[in-house]
């Protein structure tokens, strides 16, 4: 009797512990830390995605955190060898330095595996190929895009309609229109002078591409000798100089920061402004009710060599740190975030374009309709990569552009300055070199 009771107790104990062990096996608790830049689109979407993923995968705990200066907190974590598992460090992080230092892993093996929840196909094929191409170094993919921005010009729709003006598509149309706008006492074009990067991607590069074709820009980015002082760049500089001499830029724009210039635009004192597709969300708190802004590509040369549909884009990539503790889970969570369903949700909730193919079939807010059309039509896509690859060259191009816009140097001196900076970068053996190979763009 006694022995039987003991046997029963032992059996029950074994059964219970077996159940506990098997439960543990079925649901191993694993945790993930995701550090994100908190910019204009916030981090609430990523937090929401984490909660959904936790529901789909019991036992997984995901901590999403972020702030507008997250890159400053991430630097010491990388140095200490204690980075998060997945990160979107934002524009302030020197992404390529992370790659050179082996702090982030190549992702090709994972890109060749199936997308989230699928058993076949390649995750790689779900991305816009032109955006994925921006994430490569020496043939390997180290970063992944999420949303992307398009660069172009915005115009004041109501002002244009009221005056019967049409968005100019060519250089001669632009000059004719600027004259009419100026006659009305309005500044035709304003720009964010304190941050000359806007003028570089809004004037200089599109016009160099228009004058010399996309090769002119690709060669410049690839540091081909003479490319930065090629006739294409000289022509672009002359165009900027001509607008300045004719007084088509807003007086004082070179002393304005981005908010200042953008306020000039939305208050109707300037008719056009170069800016990315983030403009609407950046200014949403100060936009007058019913303010309508239209998007267009920078007008191209009437007889330009370049593709008139070429469009500039920019990404803010995500990456998986080498010393993260849960690599596989980080990848799977990012696969979930880039599923078509989540991508469409991001487009609708945040009003920006996404790097996932087919996500443009979502319901866009009004101000994104024109950019989406421009992107669909684009046969060539370009991106300012040299600024991330070679920050010193990027800074010198921007400084020289500020000087050109202020009329302090001639277009000839301008291109000489750019070429000198490119030469210095070429000669500096401590700077790792990149090559952009243009595949089939779209």
């Amino acid at each position: 009797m006694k022995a039987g009771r003991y046997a029963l107790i032992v059996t029950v104990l074994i059964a219970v512990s077996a159940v506990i062990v098997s439960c543990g096996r079925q649901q191993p608790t694993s945790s993930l830390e995701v550090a994100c830049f908190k910019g204009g689109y916030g981090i609430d979407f990523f937090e929401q995605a984490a909660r959904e993923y936790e529901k789909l995968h019991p036992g997984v705990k995901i901590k999403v955190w972020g702030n507008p200066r997250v890159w400053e907190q991430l630097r010491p974590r990388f140095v200490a060898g204690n980075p998060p598992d997945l990160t979107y460090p934002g524009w302030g992080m020197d992404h390529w330095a992370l790659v050179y230092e082996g702090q982030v892993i190549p992702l090709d093996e994972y890109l060749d595996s199936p997308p989230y929840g699928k058993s076949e196909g390649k995750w790689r094929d779900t991305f816009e190929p032109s955006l994925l191409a921006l994430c490569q170094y020496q043939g390997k993919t180290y970063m992944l895009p999420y949303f992307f921005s398009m660069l172009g010009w915005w115009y004041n729709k109501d002002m244009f309609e009221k005056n019967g003006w049409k968005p100019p598509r060519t250089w001669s149309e632009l000059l004719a229109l600027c004259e009419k706008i100026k006659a009305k006492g309005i500044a035709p074009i304003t720009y964010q002078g304190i941050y000359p990067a806007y003028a570089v991607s809004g004037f200089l590069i599109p016009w160099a591409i228009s004058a010399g074709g996309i090769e002119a820009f690709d060669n410049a980015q690839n540091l081909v000798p003479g490319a930065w002082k090629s006739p294409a760049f000289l022509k672009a500089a002359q165009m900027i100089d001509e607008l300045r001499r004719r007084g088509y830029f807003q007086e004082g724009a070179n002393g304005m920061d981005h908010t200042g210039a953008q306020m000039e635009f939305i208050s109707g004192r300037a008719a056009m402004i170069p800016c990315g597709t983030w403009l609407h969300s950046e200014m949403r708190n100060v936009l007058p009710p019913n303010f309508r802004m239209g998007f267009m590509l920078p007008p191209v040369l009437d007889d330009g060599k370049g593709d008139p549909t070429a469009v500039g884009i920019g990404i803010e990539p995500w990456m998986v740190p080498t010393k993260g503790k849960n690599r596989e889970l980080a990848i799977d969570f990012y696969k979930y975030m880039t599923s078509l369903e989540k991508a469409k949700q991001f487009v609708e909730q945040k009003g920006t374009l996404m790097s996932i193919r087919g996500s443009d079939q979502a319901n866009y807010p009004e101000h994104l309709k024109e950019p989406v059309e421009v992107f669909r039509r684009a046969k060539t896509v370009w991106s300012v990569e040299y600024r991330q690859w070679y920050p010193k060259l990027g800074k010198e191009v921007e400084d020289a552009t500020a000087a050109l816009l202020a009329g302090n140097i001639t277009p000839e001196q301008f291109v000489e300055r750019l070429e000198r900076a490119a030469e210095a970068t070429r000669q500096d053996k401590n700077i790792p070199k990149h090559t952009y190979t243009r595949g089939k763009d779209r």
Partner: protein
Amino acid sequence: MTPRARAGFITLFLLPASALYALFVVIPVVQAFAFSLYRWRGISANRTFIGLENFQQLFNDPLVWRALSHNLLLFVGTSVVILTVSLALAHAVGAESALARFLRSVYLFPQVISLVVVAILWMFILNPSFGILNATLKAVGLKEWAITWLGNPYTALASIGVAHVWHALGFYIMLFAAALRTIPTDVMEAATLDGATGLVRLRYVTLPLLWAVLRIALVYMAIGTMNIFSLVFLMTQGGPDRATEVMLTYLYEQAFKHSEFGYATALAVVNFVLVMALSGAILTLFRHNPQEGRG
């Protein structure tokens, strides 16, 4: 208490503060000296020892010299203005009148405003489109004077200097007003009875008696302008075309934008040495009160 026990007692109380100071100030400074000898991207633990290469590069970097000249220009320009204006206002706030009472209640306002707010405020004032400065100039018929203050390489640095003076003035008024009160009234009365009034009294009586305070004020001004960062970073980003680049904005660019942490640390070391040298030079140059020992 024996002197020995007293010393022990004092040491005991000094120890915690000294330990914290060593941990958070002395050790990082020493570390900075060490990091300046490396090529380091500041993003991993990998560092390459390169000896004095960073310093060699620094002395051959024209931008360092340009930035340094801007710091020194700011020091000379703003200290002259601050000294004259704050001395005058320190006199004014010491008087007994309605104006003095008003000045006493407002002069510290700019000092207590955050530098970020000061920068934004001055960007509004100097705004070429709707700023109050250009609006005023246009209203009084000086249309040609209404220029792009921050976008023009010839006026940008001076504009930052004005914002800096406006912010710093309150502190120096306070310093001088307090020092003026320490001058015994009988000395002033005696000087007045002897016929020394106005500028003569200022030169031969007031200034010599303020000498020690003036000397310290100059050192503060040197430190303030050598370490200027926020105003420049917010108002011009060092632009247009480097016209307002200063040592610390250049350091920030090297460290955080170019991932040249070793080079940036070398810049910090050089700036540290320069601030020390400048302060030392001021203290030495103004060691002797020229009025002392006169017959």
